[in-house]
């Protein structure tokens, strides 16, 4: 297996929400425009440290997410850079119209953050489990959607999000996550990262849970003699079309993996590029046509097939599909 990145010298886990709060606090020291908003979930979202450092730049609006996003839009209208946060389910479903109109249609600069995506909501259960937030957000013109897979990429991408004008949606895993990247790694919004190079198929994954499972799957596939590339597609919009096309051409088959519905999420975004530009066999792994439910994250990963084992099984399927299709048109053009 061929790693394409420097492995972290020090892979210890870090709480993603702590990184989020620390980075915002550090940026705020240099930039007075940074303000944080929350809707009664500050501890969960890791912004209590920011509040301590900058109480006058922190607004907890209580349990009122729609108001929070509307207020953020107003703050942005007078030149501030607001970071409202709540769980992904409320960020996307409950504030969608306010975020769409007051923030995005008004061409303002609201940096919305949703935490506990998909099955990470675990014991909070079905009402709190967002399998559709990327789908909703992806339909907003010009928006940036980012889902970092580890603390290092979060630390590097958050300043980019901050200083790129325009509204964005950060899909943030809040719990401890083991580092994938070395601290020296650099990142660019809209440019996916090839973690592992491969020849037979490409796994394109996003987010803390599925990128980790994709790496495990590539290891298992390697042991079976299948060479799988793994891409961390941390920016879901705008998607890195060039990289998708490059790996579709190189490996002739693509497997996507996401902690979200397969409809209108990462898999759909990749499929749009593939069907438009370079049709190759594809399989999308994610939640099928189902609502969330309660349980441990491990139980839910099993329940919805978000595991390395399922990725391996789907990769085998994909290899069959690829053979049936024959020499892929991509390769014959190459």
């Amino acid at each position, binding site marked *: 297996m061929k790693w394409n990145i420097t492995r972290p010298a020090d892979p210890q886990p870090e709480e993603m929400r702590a990184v989020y709060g620390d980075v915002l606090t550090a940026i705020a020291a240099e930039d007075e425009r940074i303000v944080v908003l929350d809707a009664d979930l500050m501890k969960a979202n890791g912004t209590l440290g920011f509040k301590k450092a900058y109480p006058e730049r922190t607004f907890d609006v209580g349990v009122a997410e729609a108001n929070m996003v509307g207020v953020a839009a107003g703050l942005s209208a007078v030149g501030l850079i607001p970071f409202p946060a709540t769980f992904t389910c*409320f960020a996307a479903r409950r504030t969608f119209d306010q975020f769409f109109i007051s923030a995005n249609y008004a061409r303002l600069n609201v940096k919305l953050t949703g935490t506990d995506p998909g099955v990470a909501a675990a014991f909070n259960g079905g*009402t709190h489990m967002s399998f559709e937030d990327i789908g909703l957000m992806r339909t907003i013109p010009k928006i940036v959607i980012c889902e970092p897979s580890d603390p290092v990429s979060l630390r590097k991408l958050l300043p980019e999000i901050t200083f790129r004008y325009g509204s964005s949606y950060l899909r943030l895993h809040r719990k401890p996550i083991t580092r994938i990247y070395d601290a020296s790694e650099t990142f660019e919004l809209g440019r996916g990262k090839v973690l592992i190079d491969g020849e037979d198929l490409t796994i394109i994954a996003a987010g803390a849970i599925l990128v980790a499972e994709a790496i495990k799957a590539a290891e298992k596939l390697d042991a079976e003699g299948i060479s799988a590339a793994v891409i961390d597609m941390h920016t879901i919009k705008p998607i890195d079309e060039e990289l998708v096309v490059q790996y579709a051409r190189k490996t002739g088959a693509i497997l996507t993996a996401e902690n979200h519905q397969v409809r209108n999420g990462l898999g759909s975004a990749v499929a749009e590029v593939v069907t438009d530009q370079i049709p190759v066999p594809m399989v999308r792994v994610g939640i099928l046509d189902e609502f969330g439910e309660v349980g*441990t994250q491990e139980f839910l990963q099993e*329940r919805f097939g978000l595991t390395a084992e399922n990725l391996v099984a789907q990769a085998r399927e994909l290899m069959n599909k690829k053979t049936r299709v024959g020499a892929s048109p991509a390769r014959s053009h190459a």
Partner: protein
Amino acid sequence: MNSSEIRSLQRKAAEIRRLTVEEIAHLGIGHVGGSMSIVEVLVLLYYRHLKIDPRDPALETRDKFVMSKGHAGPALYAVLADKGFFPTAMLQTLNQGGTNLPSHCDMNRTPGIDMTTGSLGQGLSAAVGIALGHRLRKLPGRVFALIGDGDTNEGQTWEAAMSASMFGLGNLVAFTDYNKMQIDGPIDVIMKTDQLVDRWTSFGWFAQQVPGHDFAALDEALQKALAEEKRPSMIIADTIKGKDLPGIEGDYNNHNMPISAEQAEQLVASLRELEEASA
């Protein structure tokens, strides 16, 4: 209510608290504080007023109850189990994969739950719809709702408030669990939600405020509310988050907290004492 009736409700309240602690402690984590503050309201409703039949949860003519602060499901599950809607042993499955008792109330999974909740602010609107539906379909059942004070921050709660009085829903009685706590801290510090009697009155409701762990006061307020025919009623119950759990009561970190087996044992023992004291 005479004093022996009150004592028996007090005993039931201690028992429900104990069942709820055991239920949450089985997994070791859960919404403790907000489950404890509502126990007297639930006990008064389910053991004295609600016209329900545990053997027939689907009965259309019965009273309905909407738990808008859906995260307090565990306390309601303890009541429903004790009433016989499902076996008490099922309480041990709270929040485990495949359970019918998820952290937030789910009408499709749990017998006796009348509305799916968990996204705050939505419960009172649903209760308004159920009350309107009962009136339209000439169903005799009354509609009860329980909202949180943090839940009251949501704009939708006030949209529901406007519509309930506009539609003259005399068949709707709501309670506010006024424990003065939300997740990030005291209501007064986070999002002041005060003068509730004035607020609800100005929205066209019949509003009263009473000590929320006092059965006599709660019952008196409820009798008055039930006598209202043309207006919806709001009973603001002054409560304490984590009520009757030594070391947990009143602590603002008690929203969603771990309970160790040892801690559970001590809490259960202390609740048993309360049960016996009112025997």
